[in-house]
């Protein structure tokens, strides 16, 4: 291809989403080429939805050559389980669902056990699942703009045999060259959408018709207000306190987790453009609706990650 008039006509400036997409696809393919047994951690949220879509694009017409792993807490919204099963079918990927047997046995739940709930179902559950199947690389949908300690985490993030993260001892990442060689017992967390922001995610979902859980769109739903959070009564396991009565409100969720831990926002945004509009006009950050970041001050997430939280 010489520099001539014809070639110049074909040149184009890639948009920010095109550059982000190409980078993510490159990362996904590198892992598949170099890891022995990769897996995609699928949490059913919007970031997972985009990550899954990118994986399908990266390997098309093959289905992504790795399974989806859902480390479940049994406390997700019902609509999340529906979408999870549908996406596994549509993508032609194997879906692995893991429940920490100890958490299950002890009946760990977010109402009675607070922080232990996240710790046992998610942090411990994830470690157990990775050990059980022997996955050496796990894709996660974390973004660097979510939280300060994420901003410094590499795209290929190494974990010790006990799944700990050492922020002081990270491998330098240059150009688009990723060193996927690991020591015995080590595993890699790979974050293909590290460089996406919340707005990028929404725009991409909008432009690509990426399927997401309907809970992101506003609808009339039964809610109670508790500790300054609007909680949705998703099933009859929700223990109502004396005097509490579910109230129908037009709500939606900016982030999805376990329904008893995830605060809704009152909203009328029923379309993606309306959601994006609301996101842009809002004045609070995304994870504020989640209880998990509030422990241990500004260093809460970093501490959790050192202990093995994704």
């Amino acid at each position, binding site marked *: *291809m*010489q*520099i001539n008039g014809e070639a110049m006509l*074909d040149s184009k*400036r*890639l*948009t*920010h*989403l*095109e*550059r*982000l*997409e*190409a*980078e993510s*696809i*490159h990362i996904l*393919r*590198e892992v598949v*080429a170099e890891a022995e047994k990769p897996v995609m951690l699928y949490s059913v949220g919007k970031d997972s939805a985009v990550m899954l879509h990118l994986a399908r694009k*990266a*390997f*098309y*017409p*093959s289905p992504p050559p790795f399974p989806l792993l859902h480390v479940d807490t049994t406390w997700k919204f019902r609509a999340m389980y529906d979408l999870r099963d549908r996406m596994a079918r549509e993508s032609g990927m194997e879906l692995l669902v893991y429940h920490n047997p100890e958490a299950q046995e002890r009946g760990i739940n977010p109402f009675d056990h607070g922080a232990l709930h996240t710790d046992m179902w998610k942090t411990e559950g994830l470690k157990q699942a990775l050990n059980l199947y022997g996955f050496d690389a796990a894709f996660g949908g974390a973004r*660097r*703009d979510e939280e300060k*300690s994420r901003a*410094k985490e590499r795209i290929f993030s190494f974990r010790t045999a006990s799944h700990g993260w050492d*922020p*002081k001892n*990270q*491998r*330098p*990442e*240059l*150009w*688009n*060259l990723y*060193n996927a*060689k690991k020591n015995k017992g080590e595993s890699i967390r790979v974050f293909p959408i*590290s*460089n996406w922001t919340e*707005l*990028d995610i929404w*725009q*991409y979902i909008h*432009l*690509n*018709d*990426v399927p997401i859980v309907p809970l992101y769109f506003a609808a009339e739903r039964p809610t109670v207000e508790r500790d300054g959070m609007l909680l949705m009564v998703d099933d009859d396991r929700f223990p109502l306190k004396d005097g509490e009565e579910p109230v129908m409100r037009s709500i939606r969720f900016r982030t999805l987790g376990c329904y008893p831990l995830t605060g809704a926002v009152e909203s009328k945004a029923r379309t993606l*453009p*309306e959601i994006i*509009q609301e996101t842009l*006009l809002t004045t*609070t*950050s995304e994870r*504020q609706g989640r209880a998990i970041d509030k422990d241990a001050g*500004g260093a809460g997430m*970093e501490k959790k990650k050192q202990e093995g939280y994704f």
Partner: protein
Amino acid sequence: MSDADVIYKTDALIAEDIDQYLEVHQHKTMLRFITCGSVDDGKSTLIGRLLYDSKMIFEDQLAALESDSRKVGTQGQEIDFALLVDGLAAEREQGITIDVAYRFFATEKRKFIVADTPGHEQYTRNMVTGASTADLAVILIDARKGVLTQTRRHSYLAHLIGIRNIVLAVNKMDLVDYSQEIFDTIVGEYTDFANSIGISSFTAIPISGFKGDNITGLSDHTPWYGGPALMEHLETVEVDQVSDQEKPFRMAVQWVNRPNLDFRGFSGQIATGIVKVGDAVRVLPSGKTSTIARIVTMPGGAGPASGSGGDGDLDTAVAGQSVTLCFADEVDCSRGDVIAAADNPPQAADQFEATIVWMADEEMLPGRPYWLKLGTQTVTATIQQPKYQVNVNTMEHLAAKTLDLNAIGIANLATDRQIVFEPYERNRTLGGFILIDKITNATVAAGMLHFSLRRAQNVHWQATDVSREFHAGLKNQRPAVLWFTGLSGAGKSTIANIVEKKLARMNRHTFLLDGDNVRHGLNKDLGFTDADRVENIRRVGEVARLMTDAGLVVITAFISPFRAEREMVRQMMQPGEFIEVHIDTPLADAEARDVKGLYKKARSGELKNFTGIDSPYEPPEDPEIRIDTTTLTAEQAAEEIVRRLIP
């Protein structure tokens, strides 16, 4: 906050017409940049300011920021923007940034990714890491201090990694009363330095990150400055992506996509150039050619990467895109190969000169094998002792035996097999590499290839205590290579065999390397193309050289048709040890003898590339010994050769 109007005006559009807003933002481009400066230059404050002014800070974060500012801030009662940026707990306690962190903000024209890199000397590796993906570098200078050692260091590193867009942000102008004179002096001093290291242009902007001057709009405090404001410059500067598309097409193959027997695609991210359906391409290093039959991406959705409104297949794809290519023919191609424009392919080589940035605590070991990853190729590489190390503060070249943490040096390296490459300055993807320690698996260095070395400029030799002179002395002889050359059937093997017997009877330690025999073993992977003939001779030459090191008299019997390769072997040997013996037989005589029946086969076309028939023989112009087989018998010829060797 009047300066922020430029950014805030988009807010109205969000509220009034979100579809219009999305349409605008769908066409945004992206700029990745790094900020370089020391702890005191106000780097974190500037980034915090950019985030704040582009409305990337939410109320809850702002509330936390205000409370943190009062608790641990360094700006009294005012907001300490740096606290937005300094992430990890340990750093917050120390009040410094110690790693590479990435920040994001956007305006209506662009999305920005900022690599925030520290200014401490011991963290060269972090800056090189952050710079490797950057389109632009912002070099921060404290207006009160001017051009410092670290300014030179940051500029050198940015230039080294190939960043062509440099912004000199003269910060803290509020603390020097917005003095034009001070600004001009700093710019003048910087210009001299920049020119001296090869930076041909840069954009200097007087700013105050703390007060917000000339960040999002031009400041009333600097009426003498005509612009642009920092944000305006970042929004409009041209990125390298466009010039990358003007280069010849190259794509490193990451993964072969083979869902069933009917589909075989090669997936990768296009490094440079443009590819279209119907383009002729060449697969490197094999050199096989084909034509692009399809450029595949997933159908469905009006995806940004589809480019054609939801169709999966593309007509054209450009540098930066991740695609899957299908060929019109069955051509071998796998991970590590490079697909390139057929008429303008890159080269493959196994010896290079490179710049190496050492990034590990453990120093570099010349001669130790490391993994080298370049594009999608991973090979074993050994590095020679550096030619020199660069002092990043003074740009002086220093002698060095090794490189330690954060050292930058120039060295030759050799790979265990050929890799497809281009000089880094032409192609970051095919010229940039990392080195990985084979034991710890750590990334120990980054490097940039300059050029490949010619074969003769060889890798450093391991010194041995038992010298070649000692070997030769033990055998009481002078090592030599009797290099027989001539047409097939000239009598090379026959004569060589008699020569060896005569030498053996004279108690000489000899070894005969015969063409046919070597092709059964060492060179059985080689055919009879010109390239393979060259490689055949190169290998035999290397073996012969090792044998002369061992003190032997080596006799070789190969057609060795090309002068260049015989000359190459001559250059490998010690002066006087290479003795070229031309077994000179007219083609007609050799063909008439045809002891192996090969000429007959060649004439009938059954045998291709036969020397003298359809492949050339270049006779020696001035051989040490010339044997005319039309006048001498084999025995007489051998007698003559031994007499010349041992008078």
